[in-house]
């Protein structure tokens, strides 16, 4: 049944609403009652002058009878029906919209809401999968469970085990059960903690991060100058603070892309083995631009994983590109030992350091950082600084004295760290 044919239903309902007899309406527009009856039962198509005459006689706009205003609603109903598979009578969606516009509107509204919630759940799930706090705590739990299960299975087997081994295995189970208890309590405490801004998929930085991660932190439209930064922001669908944040990132990206066109830069990067100092000399560009540009190399083109963090003078993260082996919490609480923060006390001086993460997540990371002033400043105000840190997990050489960084105090096991500002939720170990 097409939407035009439902026009008859609307005419009939409107006529009955205002208490007009079929014969009276037919007479008013100069047609027979039987012809109007056929129209009202959707057995005759109408349009043009007759539709206009009927609308005038009923005191409504012709579009109200033609149903053009409901096309959006119908599209939404069709979209909602696809979610239900074969359950919904898709062919009768127009009839539903015409007869029960309120209910149809409610279905469409609920479908839109479900879509938003689905998207939010997806974002939350994605964050949970990459949450460094949760990953470490769960790893600790699973490791303890594995050790207990394996050791207990040995003890209950029918094999003959000498007394020394039995005693060791009992001690191991005891140690692991204590550790499991602590890890479980920490996990529960963490999950029960009120969700902070960092964990909400609705934070502007979270939205921007999701968009950039989906694009591999590489924006071909800006590289090729087929879209302006504002157009990229519009295409991203982000609004409000997230759009403003992405706009700033895209404008910087565009300026860097103009300074260092990608094709030539990618070749130079490979030739210099991704060394920022060699690249800065070869390209005749400042160090900070090189640090920002390297993580924009196209994904899946054979380049090594390269992470990036940018913060302001207060240490608040403004940009973060995570790569395997490198993670930082996006809202406060980061380890102060990262060269990213050390660079803030030595503006304009490039820093190079190898860093090592503790425990099971340990990675050797090669870090390059520099803090630079953004622009010319007022005489009486401090400079606006941006610190930029490039992180290359696969390029570290195994320095004898790497900087012992952590992700954050809460999940850092270094008991003797002088920079610790809060207790860890996992067990600590001296001199890791």
């Amino acid at each position, binding site marked *: 049944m097409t939407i035009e044919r439902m026009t008859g239903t609307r005419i009939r309902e409107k006529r009955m609403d205002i208490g007009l007899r079929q014969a009276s309406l037919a007479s008013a527009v100069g047609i027979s009652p039987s012809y109007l009856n056929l129209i009202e039962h959707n057995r005759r198509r109408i349009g043009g002058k007759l539709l206009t005459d009927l609308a005038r006689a009923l005191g409504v706009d012709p579009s109200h009878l033609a149903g053009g205003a409901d096309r959006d609603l119908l599209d939404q109903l069709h979209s909602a029906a696809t979610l239900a598979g074969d359950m919904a009578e898709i062919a009768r969606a127009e009839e539903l919209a015409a007869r029960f516009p309120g209910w149809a509107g409610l279905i469409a509204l609920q479908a839109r809401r479900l879509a938003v919630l689905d998207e939010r759940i997806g974002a939350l799930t994605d964050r949970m999968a990459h949450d460094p706090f949760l990953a470490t705590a769960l790893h600790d739990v*699973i490791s303890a469970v*594995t050790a207990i299960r394996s050791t207990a299975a*040995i003890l209950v087997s029918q094999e003959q085990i000498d007394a020394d081994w039995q005693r060791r295995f009992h001690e191991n189970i005891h140690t692991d059960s204590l550790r499991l208890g602590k890890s479980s309590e920490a996990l529960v405490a963490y999950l029960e903690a009120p969700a902070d801004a960092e964990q909400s998929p609705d934070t502007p930085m979270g939205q921007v991060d999701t968009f950039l991660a989906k694009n591999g932190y590489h924006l071909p439209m800006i590289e090729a100058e087929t879209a302006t930064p504002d157009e990229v922001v519009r295409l991203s669908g982000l609004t409000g603070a997230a759009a403003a944040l992405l706009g700033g990132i895209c404008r910087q990206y565009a300026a860097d892309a103009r300074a260092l066109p990608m094709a030539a830069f990618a070749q130079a990067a490979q030739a210099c083995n991704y060394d920022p100092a060699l690249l800065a000399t070869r390209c005749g560009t400042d160090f900070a631009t090189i640090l920002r540009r390297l993580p924009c190399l196209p994904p899946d083109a054979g380049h090594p994983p390269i992470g990036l963090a940018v913060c302001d003078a207060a240490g608040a993260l403004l940009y973060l590109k995570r790569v395997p*082996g490198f993670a930082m919490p996006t809202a406060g609480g980061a380890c102060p030992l990262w060269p990213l923060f050390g660079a803030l006390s030595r503006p304009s001086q490039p820093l190079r350091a190898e860093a090592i993460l503790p425990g*099971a997540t*340990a990675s050797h990371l090669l870090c390059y950082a520099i803090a630079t002033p953004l622009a010319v400043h007022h005489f009486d105000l401090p400079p606006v600084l941006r610190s930029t840190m490039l992180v290359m997990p696969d390029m570290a050489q195994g320095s004898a004295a790497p900087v012992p960084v952590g992700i954050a105090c809460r999940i850092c096991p270094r008991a003797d760290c002088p920079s610790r500002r809060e207790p860890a939720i996992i067990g600590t170990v001296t001199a890791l």
Partner: protein
Amino acid sequence: MGKRVLLIEDEPNIIEAIGFILSRDGWTVHTHQDGQTAMAKVLALPPDMIILDVMLPGRSGFEILRELRSTDVTKDIPVMMLTARGQDKDRDLALRLGANHFMTKPFSNSDVRDYVRAMMDP
């Protein structure tokens, strides 16, 4: 002396349990706990098989596996990966990098023993 199995794992009690099981089954078990120096350990005394944890201090098991497969003397050594993460993408990555088998923690002792037997004596 039985064939050599090198267990690269940072959890001491897991090392002790697996070491015990495999020793009882006739294998000579060597162990190593640090990812950064694991390749040197392998090269010093190439084992007949490697059991390799993914999350290790210093260097991930995936990176070690990649180097094992690109080094002449180690490229054919059977490797079984152990991980606390049972995600498909980790399994796919391990197999793509050349792991012979991928086992998720917690595992059963008999599974470990059976897979080691199967890999060493196919």
